[in-house]
């Protein structure tokens, strides 16, 4: 199956390393990856502003992957959640008809053929090819929110997720138990409550520092939020970490 890489809006700046390292890993694995002209998923902000616009934005992304017969693989849990949520809504024939009426104005049509994956769901199938050499680093796996919640859109059991730790262990990392693994990074507070933003990120960093040398992330916003507050613990997207450790 061909894969359409959906890096999300942060890939141009704050999520640059995560997006690039994910793409590089997929290419090293010999996967057939293309990068179509995707638009913003809109997030809940556009959804609350205008539901039909939000639905059409997501339907357009799904439709352009359909055109090239690709499945979508994304690094961003918010994009992942929005695409999946839109797909569920568009199973309703009336909604689909309405949205296709809008997409007709840009010569696109949504049918529902494309599947959506988060990059960890894809890479976990290739752990035997992603083994690292240096196994001394103690890490914690940090999920954040939207990859797990709400449960109907998440990739694992939100009460006790294992997928990320299991992946890192199979690759060769020493993964410590992390109490704050599915707590919220407070990323949205950057815009609504700057003081709260700092306190939220600090509580996650402090929890991680007790047990590990490094926090591994799978969300560009979590990565950025923790990174700008952290002063004494490494915070790194999981794909960058694997690439770096394989080079050593």
């Amino acid at each position, binding site marked *: 199956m061909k894969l359409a890489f959906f890096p999300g809006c942060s890939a141009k*700046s704050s999520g640059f390393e995560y997006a690039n390292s994910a793409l590089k890993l997929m290419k090293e694995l010999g996967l057939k990856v293309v990068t179509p002209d995707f638009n913003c998923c809109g997030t809940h*902000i556009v959804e609350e502003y205008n539901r039909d616009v939000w639905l059409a934005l997501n339907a357009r992304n799904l439709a352009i992957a359909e055109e090239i017969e690709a499945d979508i693989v994304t690094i961003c849990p918010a994009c992942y959640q929005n695409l999946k949520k839109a797909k569920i809504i568009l199973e309703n024939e009336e909604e689909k008809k309405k949205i296709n009426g809008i997409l007709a104005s840009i010569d696109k049509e949504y049918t529902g053929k494309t599947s959506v994956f988060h990059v960890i769901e894809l890479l976990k199938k290739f752990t035997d090819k992603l083994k690292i050499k240096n196994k001394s680093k103690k890490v914690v796996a940090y999920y954040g929110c939207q990859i797990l919640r709400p449960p109907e859109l998440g990739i694992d059991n939100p009460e006790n997720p294992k997928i990320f730790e299991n992946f890192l262990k199979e690759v060769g990392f020493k993964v410590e138990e992390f109490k704050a693994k599915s707590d919220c990074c*407070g990323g949205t507070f950057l815009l609504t*409550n700057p003081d709260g933003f700092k306190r939220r990120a600090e509580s996650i960093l402090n929890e991680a520092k007790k047990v590990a040398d490094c926090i591994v992330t799978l969300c560009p916003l979590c990565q950025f939020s923790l990174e700008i507050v952290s002063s004494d613990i490494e915070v790194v997207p999981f794909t960058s970490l694997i690439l770096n450790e394989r080079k050593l």
Partner: protein
Amino acid sequence: MKCYQCGTCTADCTSANIDSKFNPRKIMLEYLEEGKFSEFCWLCASCFKCYRCPREVKPYEILSEMRSKLIEQGKIPAYVKAFVETVKDYGELDETAFFIKLAKSGMFMDTSVIISTLKKRGIKAINIPRKSECAKEISRIFLIVEGAEKVKSVDSVKKAVISGVPS
């Protein structure tokens, strides 16, 4: 009303835990029983921790509905307006364009820590905003759905900024 006031949503809430002004149980009660809107609904972190509601009230969805209705009434926080307009004009959330739009609407953010973090990684944080290839198609989607309704001017956005959300 399905909610029996157990407060699980509030105990689990990321935002309530850092700022006691935000109480989703109380906000929902006043909204569902009295139709009262709370400006604090914008402080929700969208973390979905409230999914554990034993009565399946879906607090997140109720707060989301409240925000939608406030937007319909024209009470739009500056960051929401800047986000939507950036997507509309650029096809994606170009981060530089977003911060410029925020500043223009009177919401100045201290971006120095953001810029220095990116610089450490060798990334230029301030780029010339660049429209994605699909920008025209995205503007068209907005135009078709919203009809010919004119985008509200920056001034009216300023007036509509809700107090309680730092701007």
